[in-house]
């Protein structure tokens, strides 16, 4: 096991880089960060649409969210693999395909988190803001969103963990992320699947567990800050099961 480790660890961590494309854990992390980075603003927009009084915004956003929640991620990956090039009339790489899928997938799930955060705020917050003469937009921007996003920070970190795990789907379309790299290593060793896949699990575990702990710590801070404030209606959210995608 030690030998496989020393010999193949670079492949698992950075893929073929610098002799070839970056891959392995590095690519997994890049995908996750980009995925979450693009998904976050999209999710806020989706959440705003979901709670909007206008049916023309509410209905399509609801359809998107339920569609994404009802279809396996693999199938979504296949869909974008074939649809995205058709739609934009241009070839896109497997990496882009996966990224697009992850962004849509995560945005849908995260919008539910953001929405839950907004709805968990006591109604009095909005009423107080409106009573002061703040309009809908100002109320959202100044009062609702800052609190909802802050309260949901732990869930959002947990979502990052989900994203990391979901990048493993890249394996099926040959994005050279960690799972793909592990399979490459397994190909060249052929006789040590147990060791290779155990190592794969360990690497994922280390990264995801560290982040999960981070979410727990942030959750503690958020809960403490929230204690005694008017927002007591939501329980700790870091592990809120409804809100996680995987």
């Amino acid at each position, binding site marked *: 096991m030690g030998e496989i480790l020393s010999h193949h660890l670079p492949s698992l961590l950075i893929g073929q880089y610098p002799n070839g494309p970056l891959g392995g854990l590095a690519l997994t992390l890049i995908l996750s960060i980009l995925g979450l980075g693009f998904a976050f603003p999209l999710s806020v927009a989706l959440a705003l649409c979901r709670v909007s009084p206008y049916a023309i915004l509410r209905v399509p956003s609801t359809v998107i969210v339920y569609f994404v929640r009802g279809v*396996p991620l693999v199938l979504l990956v*296949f869909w974008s693999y074939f649809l995205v090039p058709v739609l934009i009339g241009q070839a896109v790489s497997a990496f882009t395909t996966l990224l697009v899928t992850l962004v849509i997938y995560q945005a849908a799930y995260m919008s539910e988190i953001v929405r839950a955060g907004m709805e968990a705020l006591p109604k009095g917050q909005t009423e107080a803001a409106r009573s002061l003469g703040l309009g809908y937009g100002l109320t959202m921007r100044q009062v609702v969103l800052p609190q909802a996003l802050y309260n949901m920070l732990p869930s959002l970190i947990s979502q990052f963990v989900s994203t*990391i795990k979901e990048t493993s789907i890249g394996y099926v379309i040959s994005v050279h992320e960690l*799972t793909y790299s*592990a399979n490459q290593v397994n190909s060249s060793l052929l006789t040590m699947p147990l060791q290779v896949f155990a190592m794969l699990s360990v690497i994922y575990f280390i990264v995801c567990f560290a982040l999960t702990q981070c979410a727990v710590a942030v959750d503690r801070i958020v809960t403490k800050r929230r204690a005694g404030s008017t927002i007591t209606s939501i329980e700790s959210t870091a592990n809120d*099961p409804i809100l996680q995608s995987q």
Partner: protein
Amino acid sequence: MSINLNFGSLLAPPHAEHLWAGVKFTVMLTMSSWLLAVALGVVLATLRSVGHKGLDRVVGAWVSYQQNVPLLAHLFLWYFGISAILPAAAQSWVNANNGELIFASIAIGLCMSAYFCEDVRSGLRSVSHGQQEAARSLGLSFVRSMGYVILPQAIRTAMPPLINHTVILFKNTSLAMALGAAELTYVVREIENQTFRTFEAYMLATAFYLTVSLGLMGLGALAARRMQVPAR
């Protein structure tokens, strides 16, 4: 690119039979892994709520291992890794008895059991401490107060996440494709490879998954509503 939809060839033999077999496999895999996940999840949640520190740690470690590793990695580890260290007799028995189904069920079931465990546990925690105190004050023993007062309420709270995770489990069965398990996604991809009717093939699969997922969500909402205590 114009899309010329033609479902005819997909819904005729031999593809129709393959699709049907894929659907059956998916349903079977969903049910077996769900049963495993729920049974184990309840056991784990009970173990965690006993209040034994060491036990809680062990179960907690198991849960966080399952939750922090992608399902695909679990699948590979079970199918190619752990299967290799089984005794030869066990290996050949499994291989002769739909090993893909067995290992996929184990991997998915174990992974989701961690989520079900946490659902049940947070259901238990959502019941206010006052309920336990009130029940004990009436002279009900720990077991009775759990049975008559705490659990009936906990299950109501745990219902929505349990449903949600059931849907996720169902969707995740599609990953068993990577083990050569002939579930629906696998079959659809094969058919797509043979016929190049990409859109039609994926549409059929999508329709199936959507119907079942939304159906489960709907049933869950219905169950939650029926369980709901009358309010003002």
